[in-house]
């Protein structure tokens, strides 16, 4: 296994925490997927992968920084960029998916009898308005 050679001299201070972080990150990602599978309603399922995005990716990226810094014997931190880009894009995606789901539900009539998880509970009194499209906010 010549490919494994450069990992043999890995110091314990880097290898041990990195292994733990990888296990934790993988476990969190698994729990996120379990949530996606088990939760009954769409509005609940959207919360499952959120933990994968925050804690799962963070753990794996910190492990990566540790391992490659120890191997190259200099700080390797460009994983921070991955964190930055994930943190900038993931929230927008979940907002768009949520909005699409809510607007689809609001095209149908309100559930009868009323249900606790329905978006109609907060949008009901707005439904009579002519337009629900928000104006872009004014710059102060």
């Amino acid at each position: 296994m010549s490919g494994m050679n450069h990992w043999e001299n890995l110091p314990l201070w880097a290898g041990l925490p990195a292994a733990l972080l990888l296990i934790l990150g993988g476990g969190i990602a698994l729990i996120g997927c379990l949530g996606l599978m088990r939760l009954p309603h769409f509005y609940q399922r959207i919360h499952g992968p959120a933990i994968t995005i925050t804690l799962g990716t963070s753990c794996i990226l910190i492990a990566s920084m540790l391992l490659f810094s120890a191997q190259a014997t200099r700080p390797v931190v460009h994983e921070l960029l991955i964190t930055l880009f994930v943190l900038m894009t993931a929230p927008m995606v979940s907002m768009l998916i949520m909005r699409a789901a809510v607007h689809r539900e609001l095209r149908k009539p309100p559930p009868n009898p009323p249900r606790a998880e329905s978006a109609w509970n907060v949008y009901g009194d707005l439904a009579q308005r002519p337009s629900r499209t928000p104006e872009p906010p004014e710059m102060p």
Partner: protein
Amino acid sequence: MKRILPSPWLSLALYLTWLLLNQSLEAAHLLFGGMLAIVAPLLARPLQPHGYARIHRPLALLRLLGRASIEALRSCFNVSRIILFARPEGLNSQFIRIPLDMRSPHGLALLCGIINMTPGTVWVEVLPDPHELVLHVFDLHDAGWWIDTIKTHYERPLMAIFEGQTA
């Protein structure tokens, strides 16, 4: 100064991003990154309908991001616990409405980012009239607690940061 560097923070962020991407402090990268940090914000200026954000209190921004990270970490474990051990029928997932005072589009964008990064809450939209935020909460216990937390811990610092009001 204002005409060459419309947003010093954005330029600094671009500069650091460029150096991180190249993982080097060689003169060529330092020079090209500097050019990029000056030219890119000027070229992208017309794409920003509200202009670049003015950050009045950089330290308050750091403090806010720190608190939001801790909150995100805590919520991660809460959501994991609910997925693993709670019965899905017992979950109280609901939409709530939160009245907002903040108008700054940059502040609202950052609030959206923070709320969506925190597992267990998803931002839906800001209603125009009245100015209210629609939020979905994974396991709601007390709507008043959420309104209070978001208004005092997030909205007020954000208004101080982007609108320059005293917190």
